[in-house]
Every structure is written in C-alpha cells, then in structure tokens.
C-alpha cells in the first residue's frame, strides 16, 4: 500500500490543512455566457462546474410537455480532462444520468414550474474540474444560474457533502477523503430549513447520521450567505450598468407593464 495519507491527524487537521468543519474556498462567477439565459461558474476548492440555463421555452418533444407546469431537463457532461481517472464517461453513463436525475429532483420543488405550463427549462451542467463534492457543486451552481436567468424560485438550494472519520464528522470532503470515508450529500432550503436531497453511496453508521445532518444544515446556511453575497454583487453591477448605458430604463418598463 505504500505511504498512507492521514485523513484527520492528531492535531485536528485534515490532509489539505483544513479543520474538521472548515469549508473549502468558494468562487462564484455570474457573468454572461454566450447563448444561455443565465449561467454560473462555481468552484468549491478545486472542483469547478459551469452551469447554463436556457428557457423557459417550447419543449423539444411532445412527450416532454406537461400540461400544467414546465418540464425541467438536466443534462450533465463531465469533461474528459476534469478527472484523474483514466476512463471515458459518455453522456449516457449510468452514474452521470443518476447525478442528473438527482439535480432534477432537487430542483423540482424549488422552481415555480406551474408559472410556465407546457414549456421546458433546460439546465446544462458541465463539470470542469473534479476534486470531490461534484454533486454539491452542481446543485449550488444550478441555483445561481437559475437566479441569474430570472426564473422564479421558492428559495435557494444549498448543497454540502459531509462524512464521518470514525466518530468525528467532516464537512465539504475532497476527493481523497471521499474515497476513504462514508459520506453523504445534502441539499437544503435555507429559508425553511427543509431538505430536498439526501444521497449516500456508501454505508454510514446510523448513530452518525443525526450529527452529520445537523452540521450539514448549518453549513448550508453558510453557503447561502456566500451565494447571497454573490447575487447581491451581481445585481448591483447590473443596476449600475443599466443606469449608465440606458438611462430611465426602469420607469419605461413599469409604464409598459401597467398600460394594459
């Protein structure tokens, strides 16, 4: 086996120098990507994901239209260069489809789909770098891209990975920790504290679950603050830009809306 990396050493530090409950650095870029109605690039540490949202627009096929609400279509693509694993994952790989389905089911109660009957909202997720917590990054990125696209949401969806090293819980696992520890990913709605997603691929002792869930909810609130700040900054930039390039745009829009 050669040398082994200690997941959590005696002094309470993890292999990348974080403490037990420390989250990785979060980077958020909400600038406009080419054709998308809304997009976001988000990174949790070295894991980086680009999410583009298109729509609501006419559904591609008749079978996908739902008469009273919008259909949410998630397509996940993992860049071949994003991982150390030398294996090509196609778009129809089972793991990738499952992850896309998880993202979709996370957002079904969050997006106000009943406002757009018979249309479709496309969410394209591109994984650019992987270092653990891919699903968590995808969900957080999707929340931001949806907000950026102006699609009505009930709340943010904030996702976080947590695991247990013997009896000590860890938050926001890197790939190295994810490979060694039992872990789960949780998505929560910060306003109500509801949980929209819990997923586990490993076996976790039932006694650890409650503690992990509580920690994950708290971490979700921290992520929420970060995402709020990013959205707020973006809104301010847009307002400032609108005032410069197009004075009086606000008044005009309001009048137009209320004329009829």
């Amino acid at each position, binding site marked *: 086996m050669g040398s082994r990396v200690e997941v959590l050493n005696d002094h309470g530090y993890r292999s990348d120098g974080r403490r037990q409950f420390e989250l990785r650095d979060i980077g958020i870029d909400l600038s406009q990507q080419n054709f998308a109605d809304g997009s976001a690039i988000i990174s949790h540490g070295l894991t980086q994901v680009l999410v583009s949202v298109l729509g609501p627009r006419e559904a591609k096929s008749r079978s996908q239209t739902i008469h009273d609400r919008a259909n949410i279509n998630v397509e996940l693509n993992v860049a071949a260069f994003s991982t150390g694993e030398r294996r090509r994952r196609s778009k129809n790989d089972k793991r990738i489809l499952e992850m896309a389905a998880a993202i979709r089911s996370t957002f079904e109660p969050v997006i106000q789909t009943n406002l757009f009957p018979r249309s479709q909202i496309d969410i394209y997720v591109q994984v650019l770098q992987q270092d653990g917590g891919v699903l968590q990054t995808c969900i957080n990125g999707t929340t931001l891209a949806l907000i950026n696209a102006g699609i009505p949401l009930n709340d943010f969806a904030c996702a976080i990975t947590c695991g247990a090293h013997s009896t000590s819980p860890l938050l926001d696992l890197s790939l190295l920790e994810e490979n060694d520890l039992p872990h789960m990913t949780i998505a929560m709605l910060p306003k109500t504290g509801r949980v929209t997603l819990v997923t586990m691929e490993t076996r976790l002792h039932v006694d650890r679950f409650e503690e992990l869930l509580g920690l994950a909810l708290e971490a979700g609130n921290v992520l929420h603050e970060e995402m709020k*700040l990013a959205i707020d900054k973006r809104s301010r930039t847009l307002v400032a830009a609108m005032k410069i390039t197009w004075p009086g745009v606000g008044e005009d829009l309001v009048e137009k809306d209320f004329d009829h």
Partner: protein
Amino acid sequence: MISFTSFPSEPGLVQIHETTRHHPSVLDDMDVDDAGNDLSDKRLTYPGETLTSSHAFMRGHGTYIENEEVIASVAGIVERVNKLVTVRPLRTRLFVRYNPEIGDLVVGRITEVQPRRWKVDANGRQDAVLMLSSVNLPGGVQRRKLESDELQMRNFFEEGDLLVAEVQAFFSDGAMSLHTRSLRYGKLRNGQLVSIPPILVRRLKSHFVSLPCGVDLILGLNGYIWVSKHVKQNEQEGEEGFDAAAVYSNQNDEIDASTRNAIGRVSNIIRVLASRCVPLTDIILLEAYDWTMEQDGGVNDLLQDDVSSALVAAIQGRG
C-alpha cells in the same frame, strides 16, 4: 395618474457586506439591530427573502405567499405601487423572452404543421399557434376551410417559412394564437431576418416601415425584425394587380445589387444598435442610415467596434 417610486437604498449596510463576512447567527442579530424587516429599506432582493406580510400588501409578479408572508421569488428590484409589491428581475439580457399582448404584430417562423394548425416560433415561452381558420386563402376568397384545404396546408406554410401575423387571443395555458387575416400579413420573402431583444422594439403607430433607401422593415414586437426589398404600394399582393399565387409564393423576386447592399446595411445597423441597447424606432434607423452613408464605409465596416461606437455616439448626440 399613478406615480412609481423605488425604495431608497441603505448605503451603510452594503459596506458591511462588502468587507466582512459573519457567521449566520451573528448576521441575524445584526438584522434585528437594524430593524431591517421594514419594507421601506429594501431595494435589491433575492429568492426566498421575506418582503412583507400578506395582510397589508398584495403580491405581484416575482413574489409568492407562504405562511402569510410575501416572499420574493426572483433576484431584482423591489417595486411598490400602493399595496401591490412586485419584484422586477435583473438579467444580463433584458427580458429575453417575449411577453405577448393581444394586437401585437409579430414575426415568426413555422416549426411544425399539425392538424388544422401550424406551430410558430415567436420567441415566446412556448410556440404560438396559427389556426387554419385564421389565415387568408389565396385569392382572398371568404369561405369555411374544407377538408381539401386541410390536406394542402403545406402549400400555404411549410416548416421554416417566415411570416408576419398579429396576436389574436390566448389559450388557457398562455400560448398565443395568431392570425394573418389581413392583406399586410402573411408569408415573408425578399429579405433577411434580424433577431434582437424584444424590449428594444418600441411600440409605434405602424410597425411596417418603409425607408427611402428602398428597404421595407417589419418591426415585430417579439424582437424578430424583417428587412426586405421595398414593394410598391400598388404592387402589393391583394391590391389592384392581385396575383393569387404570390401570397404564398416561396420564390424571391429579382433583387439588384444596390438593394441587397441596402438590406445588409440596415440589418447591420439594427445589430449594432441592439448590441448597445439602443431602442429601435424608424427615426433612429433613418438617422443611423444617413450617418453610415456620410461615413462612406462598406457594409461590413459597421460591425467593427470603433465604427459602431461612433455610430451609437452620433445617434445619441442627435437624439
């Protein structure tokens, strides 16, 4: 007359956010200290933020009600008209999708032929519907559409055809129904389609514009703009020299080089103005066209950054 006011922003709070980050529990305390839950201090909001109680206010677009609270569902600017609270979303592309209203003139493209109806892409949330009963028959005959008409629907409109129509009504799911029962509406040819954000097309007295350079424009309110060769009034289909076949013809007329040039120039002007968020009217277009002719540049030069900046500056200087 109703007046609209936005809520004043609170500069102090913003600076705190810009510099330091706090644990959520600490932040909660700060909010309480600032008594921030009063509606009047909020200006920018985000999904899930409680705006006010639903007893005192009515919810508008961009909000929803839960537990007797009005909560924002989009990120944007909070606006209040008397008791109505709305949130206007801020987006990079202003209102990408078109919100139809009855009577709007739209330009669309046929996407599908279905029994007794066509589906039309008109830049909306869903495809618009053009019923067989709301098109004119070639020759302008007024009669009920028969089964034989149903069988030759592709002779009227085929997939990919462009048309100009008016919004007639809405279906219960919000899809719009179009009609082309006027001699001015119908299939489009002899020109080029330019697509811009719908918000940039202003409502005008007439959306059919004829420029003196031999170019006709149809400014669809959905942001699709048709730039085509000028057709003389008396040669228009349906007028005196009526040609039954021409209404649904797929064949372009002969277009000479100077007209092609003019069409290209006008299209490029529209693209340039749209990229700089300049709202489009016939007057602005005319001024822009004259300006480009004075500059004596080629049609393609317009798309260069320095030329387009100069054009926009010139327009805004005159306006």
